[in-house]
């Protein structure tokens, strides 16, 4: 049965296709996009299939190459990573469709096949990090994803190569710390399999080596997920990257980092080690509070909208970490829900910003003046994404914040609940400044800039369709999909929690 091979297919198929895109791209550039989308569709369908299997039959254990687990590499899919896999592959697919037009404009034509090749690799790397049940394999896939990320970010505007180089340095430090942590665990247990490690480690919890390993793993992951104060690489890198790349990495990379953090804290180590034996969770919570407030305040200070969104990501990572580390069912549910919702929110916002950049070249708050008159659909989508980040019902952002705050309250940590609400208010300030500029133009109606000439499709020709100034349909539809996601995930969050997320909560919560 092909469905038994889904855990391998999700990785292997994009890997092979990424290689072939590169080769085919030397002679023929047109099919590269379609090949990449084919690979990502296969990954998406396989992850749907796996979720289905997980819901009906429970956790999937897949032995790569048929080797028995402690020696061979094992892929494990449970409710948590089935969900993350779907998010990553879906966002990858949607952003991929969007990038067709967007990339044609932002990077030179000769690099397009390589772009799709590396993009497929990036998605594949993130999927691999999520699907694997082996701590060292995770490192390798983490590096594949990161390397692909460095390359894609460097394709961006002026300043991108330097931002990318700094990201290489920081990213390598993070990955090396993770590798060291895994090495320490290997010395004391002789195993690299996560499930195996969690069996072997409890007897060794008092060993200093294990403590050091835990610290190294957490710091490494924190760098990769841009957790305050190790976030410094993120704003530069994500701001200068091409629009579609920022949309994808903003939506998924930090989220997969958060997923790895959950795995380290609650799968490799048992919850009672992370929560009761160490003060790790309390410290993490307070840093998360700092991240929420810091991210939002710096976002207020920005004029470049993309950079502003980058600081919002830092705050959102703070939310997720807080949910993970308050250490109860509500908070954890909120964190997982927020990983999912935030992926859609960030994708929506970055895609909308990219579409505006595509049509007008504007990226500052003042550049968004009266945008609603020109691009009503894009600005509407941006507004919905923004409302979701603020947490206005019925968008999905409200529901995850709901659980996060309840988690904080259940843990009797009123300070965290208040901090979360304060940060919501700050993000309201951030976004309403833009929305106001977008929807109302006091006293002036700037002339609508002339439309771009050219473009293959009929969408860019003046006067065609109801919305002549909007981005092409292949960019608009992905934006609408994310908007629909924001609304539907909010409305159906109850079902999602009862069918998937409630099973992700670690034992002992």
């Amino acid at each position, binding site marked *: 049965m092909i469905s038994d091979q889904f855990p391998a297919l999700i990785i292997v198929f994009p890997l092979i296709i990424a290689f072939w895109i590169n080769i085919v791209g030397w002679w023929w550039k047109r099919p590269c996009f379609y090949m990449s989308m084919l690979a990502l569709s296969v990954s998406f369908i396989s992850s749907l299939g796996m979720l289905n299997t997980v819901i009906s039959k429970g956790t999937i254990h897949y032995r790569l190459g048929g080797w028995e687990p402690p020696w061979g590499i094992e892929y494990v899919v449970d409710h948590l990573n089935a969900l993350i896999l779907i998010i990553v592959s879906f966002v990858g697919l949607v952003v991929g469709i969007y990038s067709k037009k967007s990339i044609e404009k932002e990077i030179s034509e000769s690099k397009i096949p390589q772009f799709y090749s590396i993009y497929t690799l990036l998605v594949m790397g993130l999927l691999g990090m999520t699907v694997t049940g082996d701590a060292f394999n995770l490192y390798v896939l983490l590096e594949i994803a990161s390397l692909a990320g460095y390359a894609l970010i460097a394709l961006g505007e002026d300043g991108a190569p330097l931002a990318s180089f700094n990201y290489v340095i920081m990213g390598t430090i993070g990955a090396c710390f993770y590798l060291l942590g895994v090495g320490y665990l290997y010395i004391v247990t002789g195993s690299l399999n996560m499930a195996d490690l969690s069996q072997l480690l409890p007897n060794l919890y008092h060993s200093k080596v294990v403590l050091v390993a835990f610290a190294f793993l957490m710091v490494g992951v924190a760098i990769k997920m841009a957790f305050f104060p190790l976030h410094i690489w993120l704003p530069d890198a994500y701001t200068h990257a091409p629009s579609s790349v920022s949309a994808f990495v903003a939506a998924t990379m930090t989220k997969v980092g958060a997923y790895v953090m959950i795995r380290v804290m609650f799968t490799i180590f048992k919850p009672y080690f992370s929560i009761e034996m160490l003060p790790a969770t309390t410290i993490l919570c307070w840093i998360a509070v700092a991240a929420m407030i810091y991210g939002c305040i710096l976002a207020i200070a920005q004029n470049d909208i993309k950079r502003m969104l980058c600081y919002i990501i830092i705050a959102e990572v703070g939310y997720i970490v807080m949910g993970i580390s308050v250490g109860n069912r509500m908070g954890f549910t909120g964190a997982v829900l927020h990983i999912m919702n935030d992926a859609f929110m960030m994708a929506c916002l970055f895609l909308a910003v990219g579409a505006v950049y595509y049509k007008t070249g504007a990226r500052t708050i003042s550049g968004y003046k009266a945008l609603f008159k020109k691009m009503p659909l894009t600005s509407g989508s941006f507004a919905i994404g923004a409302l979701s980040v603020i947490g206005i019902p019925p968008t999905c952002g409200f529901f995850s914040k709901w659980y996060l*705050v*309840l988690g904080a*309250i259940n843990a009797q940590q009123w300070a965290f609940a208040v901090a979360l609400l304060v940060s919501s*208010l700050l993000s309201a300030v951030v976004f309403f400044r833009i929305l*106001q500029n977008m929807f*109302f133009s*006091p006293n002036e109606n700037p002339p609508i800039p002339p439309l771009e000439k050219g473009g293959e499709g009929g969408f860019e020709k003046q006067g065609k369709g109801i919305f002549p100034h909007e981005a092409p349909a292949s960019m608009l539809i992905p934006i609408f999909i994310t908007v629909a996601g924001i609304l539907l995930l909010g409305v159906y969050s*109850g079902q999602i929690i009862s069918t998937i997320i409630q099973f992700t909560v670690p034992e002992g919560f």
Partner: protein
Amino acid sequence: MEIIYSSRPALAILVSLIGAFLILLTGERSRNLREFWTIAAAVLKFSIVVSMVPYILDGKIIEYTVLSISPGLLIQFRVDALGIIFGLTASFLWIVTSFYSIGYVRSLKEHAQTRYFICFAIALSATMGVAFSANMFTTFLFYEIITVCTFPLVAHKETPEAIRGARKYLTYLLGTSIAFQLLAVFMTYHVAGTLDFQYEGLLGGARGSVSDTLLTVMFLLYMAGITKAAMMPLHGWLPAAMVAPTPVSALLHAVAVVKTGVFVVVKVVLHIFGINLLTQLGLGTVLAYFASFTIIVASVIALTQDNLKLRLAYSTVSQLSYVILGVALLTPSAITGSIMHITIHAFGKITLFFTAGAIYVATHKTKISELDGIGRQMPFTMGAFTLGALSMIGIPPLGGFISKWYLALGAIEANQFPIILVLATSTILNACYFLPIIYTAFFKEPSLDHHHNPGPKSKIQEAPALMVVPLVLTAIGAIILFFAPTFFLDMTRIALHSVIGGGN
């Protein structure tokens, strides 16, 4: 109590959402078709709400669950007597306001009319959502939607002043609801495990298991968080929102938005905390004094305003606190009075705002000092204004008398004689700020040097019929409410019966 499961409450909400969508699709291409959608949605909505009335009069309850987010957290509608009174008022007045709006925006050739009608329709959907919601969660959801979708209406003129006003509006409403109300909702959920409105009070049995301090803090957070009720000192947004076009001020800031605020206060007092708990904690009295303070101070401020709409706004601030005062007294008559006042004040105040808009459209005057002799020029408008003002003051052949009567009765029942004094003072103050306008309009000579209207003084120059007819209708409504209050009294009795248990 018998429960009927029906999707009608959801339909009542959906109908104007669909209307909003159709308005968007039609856009500027065919204004008549677009306006037709507004009217159709309004009429349909009202008829759906009316169709639920017989069940409620039979003492039944209509329930409909949309979604279950998690155990104890539902998006659910439950139509009871209290909700239907509010729903009827808002949906009826939307029909009237729709006609009036059309007259207003067309006479003034307003820009962005499509956006205006869309936001209006969504705001009404959300108002119905609040009126019919079965739990605090659903209420909060729609409460926030109202805030967000009325923001473009307040900023409609897009002048720097309008945007400043809108920003203040948003800061107050969104800020306090996230910072205080949401926190209070969280605490309620934490304490009770559910957010369902219960007739004896959701937290009725919580005393003992939770400290009184926590309950008091929660109550204060609720009261600070429901800024839409415009209780002092958090009333600042309402005068600021007067930059909005007049139909917006009329429907939203006399009916939908502010009444949502006081309605939620009533819900929180009766169905979340419950009369018994609040009596035990003594919080009702505290709230009553806060409300009394607002009533008096807002009336005094209203006296000093020369801008007609601002004077009406401060009058609204003061009148809203009547409703809060009524429930805060926690006696049957007072609660009857306050529930009646939601409807009665709506009719009176919307008439007054309509007249302010009609005066603006016909003469471009906004200040009271400019209104000399305008009654001769606009007899119907100013006649309606007189009726509305008399209803506000509470003079017998008008609805306002009834609610004040019950409030006063309630104050006596509660042995709160200072409150009666407050009611009397406020009536005098109301008279002080309304009667001079009527006097100016009818008995003063029009100033001659006025350049807007150089024609002969005796000539009648009314606003368009689309505006005058609605405002006359609402004024007549204010009279009808005095002569035929039985329906509302019955409804109120049913609402009270469920809250108090014994009936009166």
